[in-house]
């Protein structure tokens, strides 16, 4: 990896340059929460000033720019008994500025599912490759446990990654496209002092985590505790609203539906993000439901995060942002649920 130093003005110029002819998405302050803290969301900005790079976290992840909540997969044009199918991928470039390490790790996990393996998705890949990703380091957010799942650092999956050294940014360069951008504004080589300062910041961040989740042996524990009463305890609280999956940077399950226009000339096949907590997730014809209880669905979500994905890719799907815990009206959150499982283990 190559590293450079940018002044803060230099970085502003860099973003302004992109803004002139492209869409830029970034953390924007949108409201104040009940606890007095500002609420941020990743939204399009029109000037550098609208970005609040000092944000703690966002309510929803940037997932929507890669896996939109609703996306047209294809369009059927009807002509009497005949039809043609039209498929389009989004190819307009854009930049997302200010993603934290956990969210970039989230993208890397989505890359594994949608970019590799069986049947790479052109819908996803086209969006991903047309998106410039600029990340930034930050102190742990409240309740975040990304360190426990190794998602508090990231070494690829971005174009540029900034670490704030007070009056300047330490920039990790992750792609040629990022390298070219840095070259367009005033920059300098990294000095020994810069490296020390950078490592000090990284250490300070690492030492600041307060929320920890025990993840050693979690896949096996989950298998052992498949019938644990813990699932019923938490499952009984679950409202089956699906908010946790919407707030999760790595939840990608979806459903496909087709709609026909009023004049019967066009049919659209639409993909819509779903959630395994929703009651119809595993429902099939004849009203049979493979996961009829709230408990079985909640459990399934945890299994996918910490066991199923781990089995396929040797790492959990969860990046520890705790957005699902924050958004849940029933107070269901991974640190407590997983701690409970470990308790059960000892009981």
């Amino acid at each position, binding site marked *: 990896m190559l590293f450079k130093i940018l002044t803060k003005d230099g970085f502003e110029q860099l973003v302004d*340059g992109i803004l*002139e*002819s*492209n869409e830029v998405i970034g953390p924007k302050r949108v409201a104040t929460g009940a606890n007095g803290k500002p609420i941020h969301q990743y939204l399009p900005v029109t000037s550098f000033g609208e970005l609040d790079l000092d944000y703690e976290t966002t309510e929803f992840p940037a997932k929507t720019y890669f896996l939109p909540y609703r996306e047209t*997969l*294809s369009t*059927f044009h009807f002509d009497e*008994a*005949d*039809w043609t*199918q039209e*498929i389009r*991928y989004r*190819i307009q*470039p854009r930049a997302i500025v200010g993603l934290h390490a956990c969210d970039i790790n989230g993208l890397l996990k989505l890359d594994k*599912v*949608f970019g590799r*393996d*069986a*049947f*790479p*998705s*052109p*819908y996803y*890949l*086209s969006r991903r*490759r047309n998106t*410039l990703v600029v990340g930034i380091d930050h102190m742990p957010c409240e309740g975040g446990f990304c360190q426990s799942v190794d998602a508090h650092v990231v070494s690829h999956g971005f174009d540029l990654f900034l670490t704030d050294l007070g009056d300047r940014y330490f920039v990790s360069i992750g792609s040629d*496209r990022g390298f070219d*951008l840095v070259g*367009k504004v005033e920059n300098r080589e990294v000095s020994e002092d810069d490296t020390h300062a950078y490592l000090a910041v990284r250490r300070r961040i690492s030492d600041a985590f307060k929320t920890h989740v025990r993840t050693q042996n979690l896949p096996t524990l989950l*298998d052992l505790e*498949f019938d644990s009463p813990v699932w019923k305890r938490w499952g009984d609280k679950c409202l089956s609203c699906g908010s946790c999956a919407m707030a999760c940077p790595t939840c*990608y*399950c*979806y*459903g*496909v539906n*087709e*709609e*026909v226009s009023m004049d*019967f000339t066009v*049919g659209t*096949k639409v993909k819509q993000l*779903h959630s*395994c907590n929703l009651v119809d997730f*595993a*429902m*099939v*014809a004849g009203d049979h439901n*493979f*996961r009829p209880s709230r408990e*079985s669905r909640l459990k*399934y979500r945890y*299994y*996918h995060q910490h*066991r*199923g*994905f781990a*089995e396929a890719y040797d790492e959990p799907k969860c990046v520890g942002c705790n957005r699902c815990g924050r958004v849940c009206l029933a107070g269901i959150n991974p640190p407590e649920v997983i701690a409970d499982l470990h308790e059960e283990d000892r009981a």
Partner: protein
Amino acid sequence: MSTELHRYDITQESDFLQPRDFNRKTLLQHVDQVFRAQITNIIDLTSEEKLFHVRLVKDHQRERFTFLPGQFVMLEVPGYGEIPISISSAPTNKGYLELCIRKVGRVTSVLHKARRGALVGIRGPFGTSFPMEKMRDHSVLLIAGGLGLAPLRAPIFHVTENRTNYDQVHIIYGTRTPDQLLFDYQYEQWRRINGVNLSIIVEQPDEAWTGEVGLITKLIDDLDFDPANTYAIVCGPPVMFKFVCNQLSTKGVPMHRMFVSLERRMHCGMGKCCRCNIGSTYTCVDGPVFDYWSVMNLKEAI
């Protein structure tokens, strides 16, 4: 300073220029583009099931299309939806696919109203298949309950077309009532094949029924075969294959030599939507065909 970000057009990737082929899973291709296909024939089987002959319209696509017994396709009815359906024909039949469809909901009802000549879409083939090569030189039990005969037909065709490759062949089929029996016009044909044993049983006979009465397990009880030299394919509802496989297991057939086909809700067929997951397993790519030992090890499978 203005920076125009590069526009990347994924369809210009060299992968995209290759012909679409769902057997090549790692190919970057239009994964949602269907093969245009025409319903060339509709055969009434029972009051609930019809058999559709579906022919890919483009010659080169039809010629390229290959599948293995046990695989399924996603059948698209534009404007209504897309559903997973097992391929119910012989892999050697290059002219058309046979799809046996029970009317249960939205898409299947539209299909049941479709006329000959209607254009549908096909994506696939998807999923795992029955390991017909491994079964070579062994006896095979081909067992189906109810609609399970639909996915079982492809292996039946394979075995009967390659009869010398297999030792004893038993086809065992059961339904609740006689009027639910599928493909009754084919029984005579199968029976006449030298060395193929067909037995049929119904749970609730009507006045006209003269055959066996009872559960399918009864036929297996009476069956004379060498468990150490036998493979089994069992297609049907979970309760049925569970009973049958446990019975075969008691008789000494190893669990890794019994194969079943699982059904789950499916919205992509490509290991993406997660709707078909059983624990961490994607029924669409890791299945639908599993050996029984794997099924026993899948949490929430049966």
